[in-house]
């Protein structure tokens, strides 16, 4: 089972590396969205410093959401997903493997890129560390919950916008605690409560999301 998991992760990573453009596009999108905010609200440093956690988190949310369609769509289109459904491996393992791979090419690069953008917003060093931590805990949740949405909208017309409509309301708690942790540190308090809640949310998502995704995939192939 663990071998199957490794194989799925390795396969999906290899596929992503063969189409590096897709992965890079989402990162560029993330950078552009973040850059647009100072242009829109003005370059006042205090204002930007106060808004930075929210801006970075919302941009990360959108970038992660845009990459969700990659999760199952290609495998669905060429029939690989159907073979996975009838394979000897439990579907849950395959789904978790795909989510891990998805996080490694979407959430992880965002997390690593975020402090660079944080510097642009003049975030203090402690806040930058917390930003990386909160994104590190929070972005897997985005991949997990997003997986449910991606599976539900497989092959449905208007899938992209629909996916956003389904998934974004469910992202609210992650956004609140993720951005909240950075705000807390910026105002000189401990981020531990927020990060713990984010961790709790990650634990719940790990338990529920793969199951719901499997159910949604079976529905899609009914």
């Amino acid at each position: 089972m663990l071998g199957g998991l490794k194989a799925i992760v390795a396969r999906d990573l290899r596929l992503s590396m063969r189409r590096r453009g897709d992965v890079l596009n989402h990162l560029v999108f993330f950078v552009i969205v973040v850059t647009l905010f100072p242009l829109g609200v003005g370059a006042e440093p205090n204002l930007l410093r106060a808004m930075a956690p929210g801006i970075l988190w919302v941009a990360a949310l959108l970038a992660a959401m845009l990459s969700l369609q990659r999760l199952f769509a290609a495998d669905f289109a060429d029939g690989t997903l159907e073979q996975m459904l009838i394979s000897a491996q439990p579907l849950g393992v395959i789904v978790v493997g795909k989510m891990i791979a998805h996080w490694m090419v979407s959430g992880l690069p965002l997390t690593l890129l975020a402090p660079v953008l944080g510097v642009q917003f003049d975030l203090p060093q402690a806040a930058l560390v917390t930003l990386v931590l909160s994104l590190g805990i929070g972005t897997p949740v985005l991949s997990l919950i997003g997986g449910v949405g991606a599976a539900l909208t497989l092959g449905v017309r208007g899938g992209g916008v629909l996916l956003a409509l389904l998934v974004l309301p469910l992202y609210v708690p992650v956004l609140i605690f993720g951005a909240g942790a950075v705000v807390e540190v910026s105002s000189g308090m401990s981020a531990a409560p927020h990060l713990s809640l984010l961790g709790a949310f990650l634990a719940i998502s790990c338990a529920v999301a793969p199951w719901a995704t499997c159910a949604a995939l079976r529905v899609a192939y009914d």
Partner: protein
Amino acid sequence: MTIDSYRLQGEPGIRGWLLFRFAAPQAFYPLAGRMIPWFGALATLLAAAGLYISFFVAPTDAQQGEAYRIIFIHVAAAWMSMFLYVVMACWAALGLVLNTRLSGMMASAIAPTGAMFTFIALWSGALWGKPTWGTWWVWDARLTSELILLFLYFGFMALTNAIEDSRRADRAGAVLAIVGVINIPIIYFSVQWWNTLHQGASVSLTRAPSMAMTMLTGMLLMALAAWMYSIAVVLARVRSIILERERDAEWVRGLRGVE
């Protein structure tokens, strides 16, 4: 087919037989038709009594004046909006587990009514907020979570509408509704904590704890009216859904007035 022949096939007795009987859209359709006038009449009577008490019997509020009377619609709508989502998720889960056709139809019949009550709760809340708080909208925990609830309803309706095959739409909607119902308390508490952390208690929704008996009566009557209305409307909508989905069935063709 008699009850006995059902028993022979392993059906669990008469009670189970009745339940299973009405789980069939064909049997439920006339039953719903018979129930709609009753619930409709109850809704009208309760709403009339509730509105009479709200506007003529209940005293004027000492602090908020006449504006507080929005509460009679606002609270009933807010209760219904949350309750209906749970009911919808229950029907959806039932449909997913037992694989009954009617459950999915019930879930998709409830969603528009739930969304309507959510919208009414938000709108009447805004109308109430303007005279009492001096603003249409505050990022209060309850308002924000109610808004997100509206988004969840929209998501459910958008998903079930986007999928052509009605059976698949029901089951996909069911998965979403269940995920949503797990999320509702999480969203509610996270918004509440976000609110207390970010914003001082400048505006509080909590009113004086002691409420005049007539006010409470009016509110409960309105809430009951909202219940009866929801049941009547959902039954009417589920009848249309049944007709639409079963249009090729023999029994639908046999209905009077359907060619």
